[in-house]
């Protein structure tokens, strides 16, 4: 055959590479088997166990079967692995009837046998002839030669395959010879390695035996291959490592080493182990990088200097071929530059990564590579022509992108923009810098120098590669075109920029998009198309503002200012200028420049009035604080208010402002109590300074730049009684806040600033604002009363208005007007009658000016004196309670009128002075009839009010005052309280009578009482009042009482009633000297029926035979009622009956024991007829039983007048007496019925019915006898009751 002189088959460095297996022996036999073999071999994976602890892998084996030639065997030192034959197989057949071509072949092979010195491995596929002679004659020789060749090359991976055909065997039925041939071969060649000889039975048949033998053979083949891999690769790796360890030796070459390790990578790639292949390249990459780093650190390797040669070619990465042979050869020849090496390395990595389906890693690594290369060139100080690297990077970026696009579909690319966008923007950036470098961005286009540079750059690109020559959009063509003309550059640059922006936006990288956009804006500005630039600048600025990045804001604004200037957007430009002029991130000069821009505009435009430019104030100056004088911001009509503001000018130089104005909103809130002069002057006491929050400019402006809330408290009062109905907070600028936000408003436009025109403006003209704080004072005279809210601050510089649209917090001042007014109030809580008291007069002048000679005319009240002292002083205050002056007050009193001449006082002032008044205890207080308890309610003749027992009686005095400002009189009521309350009572002792007067001090003051008198104003000669009192004066403390007692004596029959007048002098105990004598306090009362008519005596006697009463035992109660006088005037009433000159009256007695000490047995009450004669006595006997032991008071015996039913008088008994009378009411009617004692039983129902039932019936009535007429002689008497012996069981029966 052809073999020996035929050239080596060219190594095809593609994926088609397969490990080489050589075939020797019967070539025809192999050819017949080859199809099945090549099909079956990769069918099943085999586990490849690796050395160095690498993870085992399942691997599908394929092989390239080539005819065995000695040249294929590697010579010593040849490191090529790709061409390395990993296995050698010898094929032979057991039975061969005819002389086949294979036999000839085997003879041909024999020619080489002489070269075989050692045969280590050989699969001698001996198609053994039937007879061993054939074997001995030809095959053995052949095999021996083959083995010797292998041995000579120390190749140990061999296999002998013996193919046997069954058909033959059946005919012969002689197994032994066949067996013996295999055995022979084993014997001859496979000493100790009998498994090196494999039998393949009937390979072309379809039988189970065939299948079995195939399987066994394939397994053996695979195992052998893998073993060979392991061994040979292991050896190779060891060698490689050894080589690597020598890297510090002087002669070491990276390129050589590169080739060696790449060989390994190739093999892995061949075996489809791309991961492993990639690892090899990554190792090379890392090794090289480390060298570069070390070189940079001064640890230079000789071989590296070679890579430092100047860059002459920059044609970018080539990724379209699996292997860039051109570059590889350069490396092999050690002529590669750094870029060549990197490009080649990356192209290999890229290929492998794409095999591994990791295109995104390619993109990521590409970016790293490009950055890295740029850095490495810098580090190694390689000379690079300007722009060359930009070209290289640009081309490479596009190449990588196109390569990735070439192997992915659209959807995949779209969903992985994040990985590729970096390359896009990098390419954009590089194209941009190329454009700037080559003068393609300028307006005029490139000059000759630029053109030369372009030519140089294009030269460095070389010719376009054949692979891309037919691609329209190849990176090469793109770059060439872009550099060819200004227009082409613009097109390409815009394409790239827009693509980059779009991609950034689509994956949400807005900031990056804005950043690219800013570059684009810069480009447009260079191209003098500011209108296109503006959009991008605004967009970027909005973004920076929103996130508060001060420096980018300043920078972008500067660009924007330029742009706006070119566009002629005066207003926007001025606004941006003002912002820039106040920007502290700029230099002083820059700020001044922008400030001058504004000022020059302002001065230029003065001749064309009308056009106003409204700019926000905050960038021009900031309002710091505001101060009112007067400080409470309340001023009366006509008063002067000054407002002082501190404006912090942000400008870097003094600015003359023609006018500073504050717009004021005026509102009248008439019905608001809070707007009255009284409330305002009293309650609004701020310190007058309002601080405005400084704008925190560095922090981000809130996204929604809404005006601040203007909140006010709100009270709604009911119109009738001024009570609070509702309260709440209202927002006055809802219309501003709830406005729909225009989505497209830029932050820089002045849309929110509107100039308000108000009627009320505070102005200040011709102010020069120095940088920093300036104080500006506005003065205004208050005119209309109402509330003034400061709303806008506006500074005018020429036609430019700097406006602060809203003052926040809201600032207001109030103007009020006030009617003159007089108020008179007691100094203390209440005025006391009878002693001098101080009263404060307050004259609020309001709008009236008090002139000299104006006076108050007081018409005197009868019982109230105005005490005039020598010096009364009046104090004049301003409305804000600041003391203005004081003056002497003249008070002139005549009979009817007291005139107080007021000191002169200006309007809106307050005159205050005090006067002493004295309320005289005018008419004596009279006591009414004595009540049952002897108490008399005192009734004044004037309107007295008396509530609870502890309240003082009061007297009102009305004073009418004529004021100079009014034709009407002012009537003022002063209320005086009477400090004392006086009560009297009548006391009896038998027939002797005493009058007791109790004076109670209700006030807080202590008094002294002197000269207590009780007189009978009728001067009844028969009566005498004998005082039994202590010596006066007597001290009466606050809230205490003093008693006076007189004995009443008479000589003749006393009158039925007696008038008395009590008088006592009183003066404050601590009053000191009193200017005038005080009138005594008097009290009049009347005492009636004071003469004693009946003497009632009760006595309890123990049961007969015992000394003491006992509980539970009945005792007798003896009651004797004795008449003490004959018929008197007082007896003449209806109860009196006359018969035969004898008079008698009907009385009812009643025994009541309220303390339940006694049980009254039998009748407790009865009616008796009493003769009206002295010493007439009536005795009543009844039985009572003590319920307790001890000294018990006697039960009460009450006596009533028993009036017949036709009496016109109404019963004097109140309801209480009825109830206490213990079932009496019913019994009264039935009169003397002995069974009246049923009281206990019918207590409840009878009394309930009593009121209405008795009204219509002719019923007798009861009238209590006045206390003076009955003397109970046994009151206070007690009886000793001793406990009964067996008081444990006490049975009480009450009937």
């Amino acid at each position, binding site marked *: 055959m052809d073999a020996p002189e035929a050239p080596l088959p060219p190594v095809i460095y593609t994926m088609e590479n397969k490990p080489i297996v050589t075939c020797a022996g019967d070539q025809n036999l192999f050819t017949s088997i080859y199809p099945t073999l090549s099909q079956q071999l990769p069918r099943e994976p085999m586990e490849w166990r690796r050395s160095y602890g690498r993870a085992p892998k399942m691997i599908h084996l394929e092989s390239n079967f080539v005819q065995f030639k000695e040249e294929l065997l590697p010579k010593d030192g040849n490191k090529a692995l790709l061409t390395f034959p990993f296995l050698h197989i010898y094929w032979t057949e057991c039975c061969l009837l005819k002389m086949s071509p294979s036999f000839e072949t085997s003879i041909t092979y024999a020619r080489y046998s002489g070269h075989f010195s050692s045969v280590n491995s050989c699969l001698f596929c001996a198609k053994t002839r039937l007879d061993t002679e054939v074997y001995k004659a030809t095959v053995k020789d052949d095999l021996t030669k083959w083995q010797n060749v292998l041995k000579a090359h120390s190749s140990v991976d061999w296999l002998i395959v013996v193919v046997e055909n069954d058909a033959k065997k059946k005919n012969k039925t002689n197994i032994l010879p066949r067996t013996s041939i295999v055995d022979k071969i084993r014997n001859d060649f496979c000493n100790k390695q009998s498994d090196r000889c494999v039998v393949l039975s009937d390979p072309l048949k379809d039988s189970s035996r065939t299948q079995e033998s195939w399987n066994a053979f394939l397994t053996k083949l695979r195992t052998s291959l893998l073993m060979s891999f392991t061994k040979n690769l292991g050896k190779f790796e060891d060698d490689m490592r050894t080589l690597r360890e020598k890297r510090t030796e002087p002669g070491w070459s990276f390129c050589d080493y590169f080739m060696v390790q790449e060989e390994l990578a190739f093999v892995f790639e061949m075996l489809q182990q791309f991961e492993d292949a990639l690892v090899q390249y990554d190792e090379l990459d890392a090794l090289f*990088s480390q060298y570069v*780093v070390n070189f*940079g650190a001064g640890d230079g390797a000789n071989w590296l200097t070679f890579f430092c040669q100047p860059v002459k070619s920059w044609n970018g990465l080539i990724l379209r071929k699996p292997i860039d042979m051109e570059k590889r050869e350069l490396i092999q020849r050690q002529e590669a530059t750094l870029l060549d090496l990197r490009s080649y390395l990356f192209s290999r990595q890229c290929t492998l990564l794409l095999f591994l389906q990791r295109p995104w890693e390619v993109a990521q690594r590409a*970016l*790293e590579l*490009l*950055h890295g290369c*740029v*850095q490495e060139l*810098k*580090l190694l100080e390689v000379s690079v022509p300007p722009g060359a690297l930009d070209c290289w990077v640009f081309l490479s970026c596009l190449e990588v992108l196109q390569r990735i696009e070439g192997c992915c579909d659209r959807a995949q690319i779209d969903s992985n923009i*994040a990985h590729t966008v*970096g390359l896009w923007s990098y390419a954009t950036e590089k194209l941009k810098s190329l454009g700037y470098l080559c003068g393609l961005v300028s307006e005029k286009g490139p000059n000759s120098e630029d053109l030369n540079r372009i030519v140089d750059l294009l030269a460095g690109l070389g010719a376009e590669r054949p692979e891309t020559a037919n691609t329209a959009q190849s990176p090469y063509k793109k770059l060439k075109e872009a550099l060819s003309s200004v227009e082409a550059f613009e097109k390409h640059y815009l394409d790239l920029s827009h693509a980059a922006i779009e991609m*950034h936006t689509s*994956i*949400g*990288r*807005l*900031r*990056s998009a804005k*950043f690219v956009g800013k570059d684009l804006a810069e480009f447009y500005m260079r191209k003098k198309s500011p209108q296109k630039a503006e959009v991008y600048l605004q967009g970027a600025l909005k973004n*920076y503002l929103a*996130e*508060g*990045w*001060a*420096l*980018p804001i300043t*920078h972008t604004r500067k660009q924007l200012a330029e742009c706006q200037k070119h566009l002629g957007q005066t207003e926007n430009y001025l606004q941006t200028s003002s912002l820039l002029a106040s920007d502290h991130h700029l230099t002083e000069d820059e700020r001044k420049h922008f400030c001058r821009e504004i000022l020059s505009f302002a001065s230029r435009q003065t001749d064309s009035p009308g056009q106003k430019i409204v700019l926000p104030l905050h960038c021009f100056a900031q309002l710091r604080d505001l101060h009112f004088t007067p400080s409470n911001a309340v001023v009366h009509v006509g008063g002067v208010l000054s407002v002082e503001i501190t404006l912090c000018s942000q400008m870097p130089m003094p600015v003359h402002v023609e006018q500073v104005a504050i717009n004021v909103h005026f509102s009248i809130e008439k019905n608001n109590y809070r707007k009255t002069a009284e409330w305002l002057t009293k309650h609004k006491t701020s310190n007058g300074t309002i601080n405005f929050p400084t704008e925190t400019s*560095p*922090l*981000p402006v809130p996204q929604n730049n809404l005006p601040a809330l203007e909140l006010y408290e709100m009270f709604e009062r009911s119109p009738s009684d001024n009570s609070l109905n509702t309260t709440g907070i209202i927002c006055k600028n809802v219309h501003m806040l709830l406005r729909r936000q225009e989505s497209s408003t830029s932050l820089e436009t002045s849309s929110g600033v509107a100039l308000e025109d108000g009627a009320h403006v505070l102005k200040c003209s011709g102010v020069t604002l120095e940088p920093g704080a300036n104080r500006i004072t506005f003065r205004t005279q208050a005119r209309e009363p109402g509330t003034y809210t400061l709303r806008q601050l506006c500074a005018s510089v020429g036609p430019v208005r700097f406006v602060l649209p809203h003052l926040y917090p809201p600032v207001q001042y109030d103007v009020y007007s006030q009617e003159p007014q007089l108020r008179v109030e007691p100094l203390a809580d209440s005025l006391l009658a009878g002693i001098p008291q101080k009263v404060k007069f307050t004259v609020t002048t309001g709008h009236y000016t008090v002139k000299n000679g104006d006076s108050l005319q007081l018409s005197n009240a009868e019982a109230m004196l105005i005490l005039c002292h020598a010096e009364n002083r009046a104090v004049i205050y301003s409305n804000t309670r600041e003391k203005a002056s004081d003056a002497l007050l003249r008070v002139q009193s005549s009979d009817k009128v007291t005139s107080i001449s007021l000191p002169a006082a200006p309007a809106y002032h307050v005159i205050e002075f005090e006067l002493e008044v004295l309320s005289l205890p005018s008419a004596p207080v009279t006591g009414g009839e004595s009540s049952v308890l002897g108490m008399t309610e005192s009734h004044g003749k004037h309107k007295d009010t008396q509530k609870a027992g502890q309240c003082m009686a009061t007297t009102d005095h009305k004073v009418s005052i004529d004021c100079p400002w009014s034709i009407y009189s002012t009537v003022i009521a002063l209320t005086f309280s009477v400090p004392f309350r006086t009560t009297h009572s009548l006391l009896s002792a038998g027939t002797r009578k005493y009058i007791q007067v109790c004076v109670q001090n209700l006030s807080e003051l202590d008094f002294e009482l002197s000269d207590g008198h009780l007189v009978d104003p009728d001067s009844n000669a028969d009566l005498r009042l004998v005082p039994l009192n202590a010596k006066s004066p007597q001290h009466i403390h606050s809230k205490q009482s003093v008693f006076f007692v007189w004995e009443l004596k008479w000589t003749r029959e006393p009158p039925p009633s007696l008038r008395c007048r009590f008088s006592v002098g009183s003066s404050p105990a601590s009053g000191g000297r009193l200017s005038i004598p005080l009138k005594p306090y008097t009290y009049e009362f009347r005492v009636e029926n004071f003469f004693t008519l009946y003497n009632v005596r009760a006595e309890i006697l123990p049961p007969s035979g015992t000394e003491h009463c006992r509980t539970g035992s009945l005792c007798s109660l003896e009651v004797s009622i004795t008449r003490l006088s004959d018929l008197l005037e007082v007896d003449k009433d209806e109860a009196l009956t006359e018969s035969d000159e004898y008079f008698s009256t009907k009385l009812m007695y009643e025994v009541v024991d309220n303390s339940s000490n006694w049980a009254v047995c039998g009748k407790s009450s009865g009616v008796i007829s009493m003769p009206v004669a002295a010493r007439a006595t009536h005795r009543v006997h009844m039985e009572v039983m003590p319920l307790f032991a001890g000294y018990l008071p006697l039960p009460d015996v009450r006596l009533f007048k028993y009036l017949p039913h036709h009496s016109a008088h109404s019963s004097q008994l109140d309801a209480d007496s009825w109830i206490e009378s213990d079932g009496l009411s019913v019994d009264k009617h039935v009169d003397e019925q002995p069974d009246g004692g049923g009281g206990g039983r019918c207590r409840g129902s009878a009394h309930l019915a009593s009121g209405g039932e008795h009204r219509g019936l002719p019923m007798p009535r009861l009238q209590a006898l006045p206390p003076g007429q009955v003397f109970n002689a046994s009151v206070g008497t007690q009886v000793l009751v001793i406990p009964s012996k067996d008081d444990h069981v006490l049975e009480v029966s009450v009937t």
Partner: protein
Amino acid sequence: MAVCVAVIAKENYPLYIRSAPTENELKFHYMVHTSLDVVDEKISAMGKALVDQRELYLGLLYPTEDYKVYGYVTNSKVKFVMVVDSSNTALRDNEIRSMFRKLHNSYTDVMCNPFYNPGDRIQSRAFDSTVTSMMIQVC
């Protein structure tokens, strides 16, 4: 070492940003600001996992020709961004991590200061010196 260190509030405005004095400050401001894109991306992409692992270091945000930008985010979503010179190849991931940790500690100290209002610019001198030490170390 670091040429720019920035602390960025949750709302993405800078609380602190300082760059090597020799360099163009503006460039770094732009760079740090742009890097927030990647920070946001990383936080949202692995937000859940990040919280679970308590991994605050975001790694390399993106490289540029001359610089490498690294990110770190605290649990309260305050971001630290550090820009390192690309030529400074000696700086490994672990060192960047430890620098961030140091920065975080210093930031925590700032937050512990009762006179510091969260959200205000950081003006602490201690923090400043920490940053300075990071910037000087190699330069």
